[in-house]
């Protein structure tokens, strides 16, 4: 399928659009509902220039008059929290959602308030600022938990598959500051359905996929998947990755997490496993090097290319030979590290649009 530049993006109102932004650290997701029904947004991330955030830029450019219907914060990690105050200030949503359970005191916002004074680093402070921005929204605060009532907008339905009540309870019971500690365990997993189309937004969920897939086997059959936890091997469950798809085409979108070297390009690691099932993968950016990001000419790479680039960096002075080495990667503008796919009512991926820093990662034999 042809990949077109995001600069040329035009809206087809009949399609559901999924924008995934991930400039190197973290991710933000915007979903444009068909028929101008509005937007959904999930998490947030920043590009090089702090004052410009990807989701804000997307909504400013292509949002039109449509409202932000729902904002979801999947889990309290700084790489998912950037720009949320700005987004919610500029586009006040109808509803916001955070992981929690039904008790009004047992959700992420309340938990943040409890541990706020222990925050001691800029990253933690940014998470707390994001949660305060969520808290100050006059709209309803919805709990993101498996089993809650689905939300609907026209033909579009959003369901929450994770965390479960028990997962949240277990995290909360062992909770110690900082807020983000172990928070991937309560990362929300959202499914958006539009006719035959199904989008799975897997957050940073690493554990508990067995139970989720057993309960919701249909998650493997989707039109688009935001790959869980930046493609870390532990987060990739067979029930999603190797499950047969009934859709004629599908898109797997992947955001890097530079600090942990994700997605890892070594043989038998995350990318390798993903590519066995789906090629190309839509990677929003190269995370490991500013210089590679600024080149901006790479539209398609293989896993081996990425692996080799990492090896080059490893030649620098390291404490041990197997260490991951990364250059700070933040040379991208707010719309550079973005993939967008348009999906029709039948669940077919019709369009792919890429920002200047986004690329396809291919299996080497394709």
């Amino acid at each position, binding site marked *: 399928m042809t990949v077109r530049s995001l600069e040329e993006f035009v809206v087809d109102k009949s399609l559901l659009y999924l924008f995934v932004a991930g400039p190197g650290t973290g991710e933000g997701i915007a979903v444009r509902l068909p028929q101008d029904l509005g937007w959904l947004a999930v998490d947030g991330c920043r590009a090089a220039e702090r004052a410009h955030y990807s989701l804000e830029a997307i909504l400013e450019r292509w949002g039109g008059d449509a409202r932000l219907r729902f904002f979801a914060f999947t889990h309290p990690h700084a790489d998912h929290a950037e720009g949320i105050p700005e987004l919610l200030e500029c586009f006040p949503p109808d509803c916001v959602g955070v992981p929690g359970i039904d008790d009004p005191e047992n959700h992420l916002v309340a938990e943040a308030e409890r541990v706020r004074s222990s925050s001691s680093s800029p990253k933690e402070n940014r998470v707390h600022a994001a949660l305060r921005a969520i808290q100050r929204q006059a709209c309803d605060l919805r709990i993101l938990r498996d089993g809650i009532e689905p939300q609907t907008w026209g033909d579009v339905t959003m369901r929450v598959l994770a965390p479960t009540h028990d997962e949240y309870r277990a995290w909360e019971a062992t909770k110690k500051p900082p807020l983000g500690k172990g928070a991937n365990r309560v990362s929300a997993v959202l499914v958006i359905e539009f006719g035959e189309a199904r989008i799975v937004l897997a957050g940073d969920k690493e554990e508990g996929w067995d139970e989720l897939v057993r309960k919701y086997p249909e998650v493997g059959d989707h039109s688009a998947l935001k790959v869980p936890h930046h493609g870390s091997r532990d987060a990739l469950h067979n029930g999603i990755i190797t499950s047969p798809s009934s859709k004629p085409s599908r898109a797997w979108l992947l955001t890097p997490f530079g600090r942990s070297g994700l997605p890892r390009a070594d043989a038998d690691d995350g990318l390798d496993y993903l590519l066995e099932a789906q090629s190309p993968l839509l990677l929003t950016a190269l995370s490991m090097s500013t210089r590679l990001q600024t080149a901006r000419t790479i539209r398609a790479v293989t896993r081996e290319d990425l692996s080799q680039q990492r090896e080059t960096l490893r030649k620098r002075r390291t*404490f041990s030979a197997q260490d991951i080495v990364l250059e700070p990667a933040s040379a991208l503008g707010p719309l550079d590290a973005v993939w967008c796919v348009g999906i029709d009512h039948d669940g077919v991926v019709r369009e792919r649009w890429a920002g200047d820093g986004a690329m396809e990662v291919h299996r080497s034999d394709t």
Partner: protein
Amino acid sequence: MVLCFPVVASQSLALTDAARAAKRVLGELGERKGNKLFIGSDAGSGKTELGRILARSLPEALALSLLDFEYLDAPLQATALLDAHLGRAPTQIDVEVSADVAARGGKTIIVRVPDGWRLHDDADGDGDAAHRDRQARTFFDALWRQPDLNVIVIGACRLGLDRVAFNLRGPETNTNLLFDASAWGQCAAAAHELGQRLEGTPGLMPVPVRLAVGARFLEAKLDRLVEIAREPAADAIPELIGMIARALEDDPVRKRALEVIRGLRRTLPRGDFLELLDCGPADEDLFTRCLAYGDPVQVPEAVRNALRNVEPDGTPPQAHAQMGDTYRALDGAATAPWSNPAQLEAWFEKAYHYGAASGFRDQEWNELELVGPQMYWSRARALSRDKRYSEAATVFRRCLDDYPEDDYAAHYLGQNLDWSGQPGAEAYLRRAVELSKDNVWWNARLVTHLIEAPLPRAAEEAWQSALKAIDPSGTRSQGEAWLAEHLHRWVALAWLRVGRSDRADQVLSSIPRAFVERHGQLRELRHAIDDALEADTLGHAVYAYGVPMNERWRSDPRHLDRFDPDGVDLEVWFPGQVHLVEDGTVTVAYADPEAPRSERSLGFTEISKNDWRRIATGLRPRAKLFVELGIYANGERLIVRQSERSPPDFLRPSPRTRPLP
């Protein structure tokens, strides 16, 4: 002649030249109208006495004794008393009108100004100080502007007057009085001992000598007291007050008496004073002759100030309630008794103390017919100090209903709404800025509120507006260090507290580096911002907070030895921080300290716990621990801890509710 100065009937310990000075003032005044005289005076030099003589000698004199500068209702009360002396009962207190009436009546106003009064020119203090300055200027400017009005100011600060008539000679202590047992009652023995040691000592000041007698009565060492009494009063008074406070702190009755003395702003008849203190006969003379003096009893300003420093939390509400009751008995009025200045003064004191008696005389305060916004402020501030933010907000809201242009009430209504977690704070913080566009503190707090909200876009907009209003040409930010301290510092800190080191950097970088270097808190903030920026840019912190920025990224380690015990060279080393501790492994983030800035990279190494135990001897792995990782020429690896200084508490996010600054 109207006399508003207290007539302090007691044998005087201070020998002043007040009588001679009064003659001189009368000579200076002559027959001309419109004289504005300033008589400079130090503590204890006879201000009260001079005022009293002048008030007696001048046919159309009105004497005003101002409250301490720290009291926000001081100018209001002074104006109201002026009105009462003039026989006015105004519907709205306005010093311009009062001064005009006084001038037309051919009056001479004598103002006794406590030593703490200053016009700061914004060079010091916080938002409240600036507000007090503004009120003080309004008050005195109104007096200065009346061409036909005679004004005599007796005090330590000129308050805008260019011409100093003369300075009162500093007082001398009449040490003979220390041997007069009738002047000291139960403290006579202590006074006598001091007298024997201090007799003939030049330069003694009366207030420290009184306090030294009190301290000796409480069994402080005589030798030490003699030394202290000879020190300058500014040093001696706080030290003696500290000794007395420590001696009384374990006795609740005496401690309470001290709290009352600290909170008393005006004189009280001795009987009322003693009843209020309820201290028992054995201590009466300690409190009425050493810590205070005269009848009516007067507490020297310096004593009140020193007591406030000993116990900065202020006089307890219950003590204020009792003081309010005492003044109620003196004023005998539900509404302001304009026809009787003495009663009016008591009425104001009653209102003030009931206002400060948060939780004890709420109904009594609510029933008062207030005559100025400052009366609301005092009450609301007391409630706010008591963490009763909702009630404080209600009082400020009432104030704003009565005085819609009151920027002070608007600002603090916003603040208290914020602290109590109620909605609407932003609107009132904005209203305060609208009413006083170039007010540094109102602007700073609006911006920091928006940052913390967080409404970053609105905060940015408000910041630009603030700069435009306060410093349109940009020259003040470059030339006035206090502006950096009271505006830029708070805004930068607020950005840093929400994790926005980049914005904090922009704000702090807009002021001269020299200001930052000179000011300890700005210097610490600069370091905190640089530390956060470095971690944000690199993706991870690798240097402990306490490592100065100019000692980072150097080839030499701070903690690792250059040679191991066998003399083997350290070949390479890295600063780092434990990123993660899992069941079997410790992950450390690190950086090459010798890489050029543009090529700095971040490494992540996974170390098994077994290896960790071997190479990081005695160091328990924990997330966020800062370390140095070293490799010696023989391949041996070593991990040592970086010495750590925790970031200061001021960098932590603000709690949900905060006390008044």
